[in-house]
């Protein structure tokens, strides 16, 4: 593992969140013991998590409250002072108005869309792992999801599989766990709307008993976005 790879794949975040396999964890530790930048990243992240845990398990500290609210006890009905009631009700009125005019119609529209059958763009990656094949292309409307079809070469030594979608910029978009029983047939994956056009790569890995993972294939495809 090198520094660029560790940064690009957000390995220090994965390490801090306990998301790495034992093998990946050992590789990253070997790297950050010799890489001051990554070591600093892990140390700062660990300190942030430690302080966040402490902060979130306590009530809001006094330093973040306005000075007058600390010096003067308000009593049970303190919140009824006109200085608080008038702006509070004005804000509530604005919220109610916004919900009725904007949020509720939007939610109704979203619910109606979700319940309506529709045709999604799709791309088959069944042959895209082979050498010399032309890159499969999918043309999708902006903000629309699409479907990926892929076959995973299952082997009995793997307990499960993981598919990672890597964007044209090289960042991991999401990670999907695939149970071994799903690999008997072609897998269809609904991909959430992407904002960036270009060549994406679906990386499929097999995960063994010991938690180690092995890359089984890379499936590239072109995403075209239109209005």
């Amino acid at each position, binding site marked *: 593992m090198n520094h660029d790879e560790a940064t690009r794949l*957000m390995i220090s*975040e*994965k390490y*801090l*969140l*306990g*998301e790495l396999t*034992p093998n990946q*964890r*050992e590789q990253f*530790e*070997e790297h*950050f*013991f*010799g*890489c*001051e930048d990554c*070591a*600093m*990243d*892990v*140390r*700062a*992240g*660990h*300190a*942030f*998590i*430690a*302080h*966040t*845990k*402490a*902060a*979130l*398990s306590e009530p*809001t*500290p006094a*330093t*973040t409250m306005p000075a007058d609210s600390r010096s003067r006890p308000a009593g049970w009905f303190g919140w009824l002072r006109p200085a608080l009631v008038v702006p509070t009700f004005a804000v509530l009125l604005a919220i109610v108005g916004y919900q009725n005019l904007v949020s509720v119609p939007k939610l109704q529209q979203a619910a109606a869309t979700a319940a309506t059958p529709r045709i999604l763009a799709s791309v088959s990656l069944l042959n895209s792992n082979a050498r010399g094949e032309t890159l499969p292309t999918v043309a999708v409307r902006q903000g629309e999801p699409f479907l990926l079809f892929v076959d995973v070469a299952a082997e009995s030594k793997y307990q499960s599989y993981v598919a990672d979608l890597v964007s044209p910029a090289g960042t*991991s*978009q*999401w*990670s999907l766990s695939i149970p071994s029983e799903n690999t008997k047939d072609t897998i269809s994956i609904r991909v959430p709307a992407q904002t960036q056009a270009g060549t994406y790569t679906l990386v499929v890995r097999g995960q063994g008993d010991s938690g180690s993972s092995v890359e089984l294939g890379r499936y590239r495809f072109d995403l075209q976005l239109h209005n």
Partner: protein
Amino acid sequence: MQFHAFDAPYLERLCSGDFPTEEHFVRYFSELIRLKLRSRVRSPQAIEDIRQETFARVFATLRSPERLRQPERLGAFVNSVCNNVLREFYRSSQRDNSIEDDDQTESLPDTTSDVLTILTRKEMGERVWLILEDLSERDRRLLREIFLEERSKDAVCEGFGVDRNYLRVLLHRAKLSFKSLYLKSLGSKVRGAAADQEG
């Protein structure tokens, strides 16, 4: 303490027993060793034992005729010695399987109680509050459930309608906001330690 370069003169000073270099070396790698061990060993006493044994072996090698000659391998060397000590610890404790547990890892702030550390800790706590206040209510609740609740991260993310990558990016951004203060605090600690030595 992060401003030292692990180069040939550093390795030379370390091998020849230069005290400030030794102190920097032990402080720097102690923190990395503790970070490494926190997900593998529960007992603080065992972590301390493994840390000390690692340094004892590292220094023994550095001062032997077969000493390390490549300064760029220094970190990897400490890590491999620590791995060996850890493996021996597993064997002797005969609890290999029950010791590893990522979700049970402890991340507690440093509890050292000197004045400088207390002030730094307070400042870092306040910075964390400011960072958390800048987050949306949903992101704050997400962090709370991830770090404080005993639920799986996948279940928490699903409940919030986000994926694991969203969580990583959230942590990454918060960490970047926090990092400058953290670096400053390390500088203060080093200056404080140097002043103690001079005094």
